[in-house]
């Protein structure tokens, strides 16, 4: 089983020495993200997120399926992650690594268990027909901080996604093509994001958006998921080193600030994309499926 190449003694010592002087290798402040670039595809529900050299593509696809017998009113929403050797030679095909399990669990908790996407809104006919939504996350290149990048990609894709409009007439389900009615956006109740904090010196120093090298040198990481309103959905600490409760609280505060910052970037690119797609005119206004609410 291939493993990520460990940094040498010299690199480790240098990174730690530089951190004591609050210097990072790429010259950013300790609490700064790398350059974030989000692009949407021609189709709805495709988001390509680049955070520095790390790149993740998320695609949302929807189909109509029958619901689980014990959850008749809930639609189906699954998140799948794929770490292919394309991203890093340390990834193997067909074997689920610890990183992949960790990544999918964090995303599952952040987006699904926090009820960011209301699965009830995906129900079409109770007990018979529901939307089955699938988020495919492809890691294209791995240079650190996969969790945050994947979460940004998944949330941006969900917010960008449109599913066909439907109606029920006399017990018959009608699915409209985009020509008949504009597709409708998903019912997202809130917009949570993950922020990974890598800590050093038992929490004295916390790094936001660590690169792969910094990740490998850190004592451990704290993953915080929160929404811009400041509601925390998940706090997870891994890595073994112990941290003080106050450090954890400080980390959560820091993460919430970052969630707001990244959320604003997503808002801006979504607005730009909507402007690009809006052809204007009375017809497009009249035919719009969404209402003022």
């Amino acid at each position, binding site marked *: 089983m291939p493993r990520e190449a460990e*940094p040498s*003694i*010299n690199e480790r010592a240098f990174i730690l020495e530089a951190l004591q*002087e609050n210097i990072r290798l790429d010259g950013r402040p300790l609490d700064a993200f790398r350059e974030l670039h989000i692009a949407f595809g021609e189709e709805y529900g495709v988001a390509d997120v680049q955070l520095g050299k790390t790149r993740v593509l998320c695609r949302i696809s929807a189909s109509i399926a029958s619901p689980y017998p014990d959850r008749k009113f809930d639609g189906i929403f699954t998140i799948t992650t794929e770490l292919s050797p394309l991203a890093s*030679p340390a990834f193997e095909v067909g074997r689920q690594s610890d990183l992949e399990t960790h990544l999918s669990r964090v995303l599952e908790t952040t987006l699904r268990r926090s009820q960011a996407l209301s699965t009830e809104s995906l129900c079409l006919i109770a007990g018979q027909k529901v939307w089955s939504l699938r988020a495919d996350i492809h890691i294209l290149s791995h240079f650190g901080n996969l969790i945050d990048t994947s979460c940004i990609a998944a949330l941006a894709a969900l917010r960008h996604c449109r599913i066909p409009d439907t109606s029920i007439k006399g017990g018959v389900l009608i699915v409209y093509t985009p020509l008949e009615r504009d597709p409708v956006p998903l019912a997202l109740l809130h917009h949570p994001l993950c922020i990974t904090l890598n800590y050093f010196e038992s929490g004295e120093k916390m790094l936001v958006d660590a690169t792969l090298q910094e990740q490998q040198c850190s004592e451990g990481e704290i993953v915080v998921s929160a929404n811009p309103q400041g509601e925390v959905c998940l706090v997870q600490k891994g890595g073994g080193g112990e941290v003080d409760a106050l450090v954890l609280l400080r980390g959560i505060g820091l993460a919430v600030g970052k969630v707001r910052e990244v959320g604003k970037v997503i808002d801006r690119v979504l607005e730009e994309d909507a402007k690009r797609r809006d052809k204007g005119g009375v017809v497009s206004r009249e035919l719009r499926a969404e209402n003022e609410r």
Partner: protein
Amino acid sequence: MATKTLVFPGDIISPEVLPIPTNPSLPLKLGPGLRHVPPSTITSTLAGPLCIDRKKNAIWVENNTGRYIPQPNDLIIATVHHSSTDIYHCSITPHTAFAQLPQLAFEGATKKTRPQLNSGSLIYARILSASKHTDPEIVCYNPSTGKSEGMGELKGGMLFDISMAMARRLLMHKQKADGGIALLEEIGGKVAFEIAVGRNGKVWVKSGGVNETLLVGRALQETDTQGLGIEEQVKVVRRLMRQV
């Protein structure tokens, strides 16, 4: 490397471009990126500038892609992975077969005075032999003289990744004239530093402080990724110098 013509894959190299050897008995040598199609056609298989060395009667295409494949006599920076009875197993590039460094292949090393290297130490070494079918063998001394010639363990400092073309340019005899690199001289005028360049795309830099080491590393990486010319390199160095 006097004239620079740009070639693309499939281009036929015209016979006028080929070097006229000073010594007629010297055969023409084709380097990477060129292919000989009998009887006398030479085509390129890569895109890049065509380089010609008249003295050696050699011709090749400079190209900045691909992974590092060990070649004999290349200077490389490797990481010690683990040690066995009398060999250190070193990784030249991640996820490839380990290179073997005999524990006695250091200057003045005997069974009692051989250096103790831990897992994760960096070494500057020369490739002794490399072939497709065996693990590469590296040494930290010149076998003909027994001297270290700057090779051995690299202590302290920091390792930076650069592209393989940049490493080749840095290792040229006339760095400024042939490689088009002036930034090391420019920095060297103001800050003292040590540097070791590995053909496997690694540079080790050591200087007085963290800031100075990072200055050299960042200037090299910026020059590499943005393909800066000599004047631009001087500007980058001045800008980074002001930040320190």
